[in-house]
């Protein structure tokens, strides 16, 4: 089938009820995928009807991505078949899928960062002319964008776009290609709540108008209940439930998704009496050219002992740089960071003296040496000091191993042995190991960046409990997270970062107004533009 025919098919608005009565648009039957002895997907079937918004729910590692990758030709399933329009199709590659009108918006972006939006969109077509006439391409694409409520700048290079704009570009790309089946892999993780509503609402509407089928991969129940018609739940590679969203409660879906499991109890917040001293104090902190992606320009940020300050914001607004400035991975261009009133230069000596500890994002890359053992990685903070604080010249291997065994047991790190390479651990266990290292010994300031990103429910509960415990023990905690729900749940105070600046501060917990925070995250606020008064 040619691309033109697909576009016409989508453009023709058919009555939805009529379409729904037909057989499913896309059907996967009994898909099984094994990697060696491990069965990632065990005879899973799913049906997508024209015009429906279908949710695929499951924890990380439940097989959601494997299922859609089998449907899109990335993987070749060991068993099972994919049926499109009642005909069995062999989809050998993503290109085949595209030709058949099945498109996917990936979690990691598939746009070329150094090319403009226009170049990316043109190159994504199945047929690209030998010599490209940019004028007519721009005219055609502008005309197409006119019809869409989502707006992206055509002549901006992709690496200058915010994550939200990139996500929108990915979605527009699929619509431009005329996809009849659209798979979205956790599309809202980089969007503000308002943007997420806008994008999902638009796709929902488009699906029911044009008969496009949307499969939304997610672990957020709010999205399922607000936008989806039907849901399929996966757990450990198997289909554990399916049905109409209207007939299921959130508790039902959570039960199917998680199964029966004990979650770590989250400790209560200890109320600290009185105003405590500020531990972290950043003043006029500048890094990078103002307004560029990832730069930081913070006028004033304080974190007091015994409180969690959550930094909310969409990725790329300077949070990563802020953490790097405190961990010592980046140098400030101006301003200063003080810890307990003293200047802090993020050197190893200063971090040791002032008890500053850090759990950066992607800890395997930012806080571990993957090829070194778990025990060695656990000793990174302390291997050069004897217990009495004197510098140590020769390593105490047996002491390191004992300490590692203690931490592995205390923080429930799952590893074959302390001498296994740390890169062999799962994401959650690397996170636990780094947190164990950072919280061993006294901690006055803990910086945690996206601590629960990509972890399953059990690990998330563990890590959050550890962070709360550190707070209750009197540490100042700076929590930087792209997950707004996490920031709201854990923080005593919330600061919103936008384009490197703190544009809004409010209380955390139940008193937080997520709509207001979301507006500030997107920069939609008079206060957010700053300096007007």
């Amino acid at each position, binding site marked *: 089938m040619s691309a033109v025919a697909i576009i016409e098919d989508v453009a023709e608005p058919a009555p939805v009820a009529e379409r729904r009565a037909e057989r499913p648009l896309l059907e996967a039957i009994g898909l099984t995928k094994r990697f060696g002895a491990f069965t990632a997907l065990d005879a899973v079937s799913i049906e997508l009807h024209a015009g429906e918004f279908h949710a695929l729910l499951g924890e990380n590692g439940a097989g959601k991505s494997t299922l859609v990758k089998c449907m899109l030709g990335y993987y070749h399933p060991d068993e099972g078949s994919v049926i499109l329009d009642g005909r069995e199709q062999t989809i050998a590659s*993503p290109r085949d899928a595209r030709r058949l009108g099945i498109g996917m918006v990936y979690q990691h972006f*598939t746009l*070329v*960062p*150094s090319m403009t939006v226009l*170049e990316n969109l043109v190159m*994504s077509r199945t047929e*690209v002319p030998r010599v*490209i006439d940019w004028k007519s391409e721009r005219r055609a694409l502008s005309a197409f964008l006119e019809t869409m409520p989502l707006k992206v700048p055509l002549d901006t290079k992709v690496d200058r776009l915010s994550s939200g704009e990139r996500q929108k570009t990915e979605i527009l790309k699929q619509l431009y290609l005329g996809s009849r089946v659209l798979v979205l892999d956790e599309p809202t993780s980089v969007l503000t709540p308002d943007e997420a509503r806008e994008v999902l609402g638009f796709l929902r509407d488009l699906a029911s108008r044009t008969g496009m089928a949307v499969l939304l991969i997610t672990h957020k129940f709010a999205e399922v209940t607000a936008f989806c018609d039907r849901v399929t739940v996966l757990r450990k590679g198997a289909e554990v439930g399916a049905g109409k969203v209207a007939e299921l409660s959130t508790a039902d879906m959570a039960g199917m998704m998680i199964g029966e499991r004990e979650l770590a109890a989250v400790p209560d917040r200890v109320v600290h009496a009185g105003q405590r001293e500020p531990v972290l104090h950043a003043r006029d902190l500048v890094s990078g050219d103002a307004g560029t992606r990832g730069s930081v320009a913070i006028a004033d940020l304080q974190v007091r002992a015994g409180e969690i300050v959550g930094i909310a914001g969409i990725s790329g607004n300077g949070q990563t740089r802020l953490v790097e400035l405190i961990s010592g991975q980046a140098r400030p261009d101006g301003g200063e960071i003080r810890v307990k009133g003293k200047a802090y230069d993020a050197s190893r000596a200063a971090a040791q003296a002032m008890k500053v500890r850090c759990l950066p994002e992607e800890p395997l890359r930012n806080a571990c040496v993957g090829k070194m053992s778990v025990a060695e990685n656990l000793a990174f903070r302390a291997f050069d000091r004897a217990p009495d604080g004197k510098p140590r010249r020769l390593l105490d291997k047996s002491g390191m191993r004992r300490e590692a065994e203690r931490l592995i047991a205390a923080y429930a790190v799952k590893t074959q042995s302390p001498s296994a390479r740390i890169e062999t651990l799962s994401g959650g266990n690397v996170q636990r190991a780094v947190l164990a290292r950072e919280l061993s010994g006294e901690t006055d300031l803990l910086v945690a960046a996206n601590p629960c990103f990509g972890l399953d429910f059990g690990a998330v509960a563990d890590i959050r409990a550890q962070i709360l415990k550190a707070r209750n023990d009197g540490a100042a905690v700076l929590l930087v997270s792209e997950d707004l729900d996490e920031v709201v749940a854990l923080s005593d105070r919330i600061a919103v970062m936008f384009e490197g600046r703190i544009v809004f501060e409010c209380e955390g917990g139940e008193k937080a107004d997520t709509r207001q925070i979301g507006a500030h995250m997107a920069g939609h606020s008079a206060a957010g533009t700053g300096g007007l008064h």
Partner: protein
Amino acid sequence: MNEDLGLWAVPIAVLGGMLRVSTPFLFVSLGECVTEKSGRINLGLEGTLVFGAMAGYGGSYLTGNPWAGVLLAGLAGTLFGLLHAALCSLPRVNDIAVGIALMILGSGLAFFFGKPLIQPAAPMLPSLSLGGWSDVPQLRSALEVSPLLLIGIAAAFVLLFVFKRTRIGLILRMVGDSADAARAMGYPIIPVRVAATAFGGFMAGIAGAYLSLYYPGSWNEHISSGQGLIAVALVIFARWNPLACLGAALIFGGAGALGPALQSVGVTSGYYLFYAAPYILTLAILFATSSPRRALEGAPRELSITK
């Protein structure tokens, strides 16, 4: 002879040197620009260049036609490019290590096969006189240029057009900038890189033929003074832009001609220092345009040196 021109002799000599010396830099850097745009770096071009010089000289000697020599040099270069590309397509092979190995292999093979070619004289490439309008003999001789220079300049503009306006060019940039994105859009990665590396080898081979068949115009073991290696650095300096490669090659050629030019007007003290001008200039420009914090602007992101 220089009395009537005075100090004007220096810029004229620099211009002449620039037009003569820059051509091999131009060819190697344009070829390497294409290779690096695809996400691979080929450090072996120095060896390819030396082998191309030998093959070009031999081809010209055996057929009596210098252009046949140029073609042979280009084909030999293509083979070296294909070898590099094939080796780098194997799993866990580092393109820089392969490049260094091929650099040595190319020079070694060239010396081995080129021994009998040191004595005989091969027909040289013709030159074009662009200075007929001038009465100054120095200017006229400075403007005697090789047709290869004009071809190289045209190639720079053609490559710019290819990168900006054609499907092949965009696929090349895509493969070099984000292999993930290219794969998701169904474009092949390895064939594109193989073709780009073969093209780089082809251009380096021609640059070698220029050395042995035009300027300096002989075949011996010291024919190259590192042009192949310097041109790789020129690509980085030119920020992967073909027109900037042209500019960089001309600047570098001009700086290289400064020493001989000064010597010709009678500056004798410390002229070795002026011979070093190209290298000092390169260091100075790289220093001035570098930044400890920003990543290289325009660098293909799949390139192993910028990853």
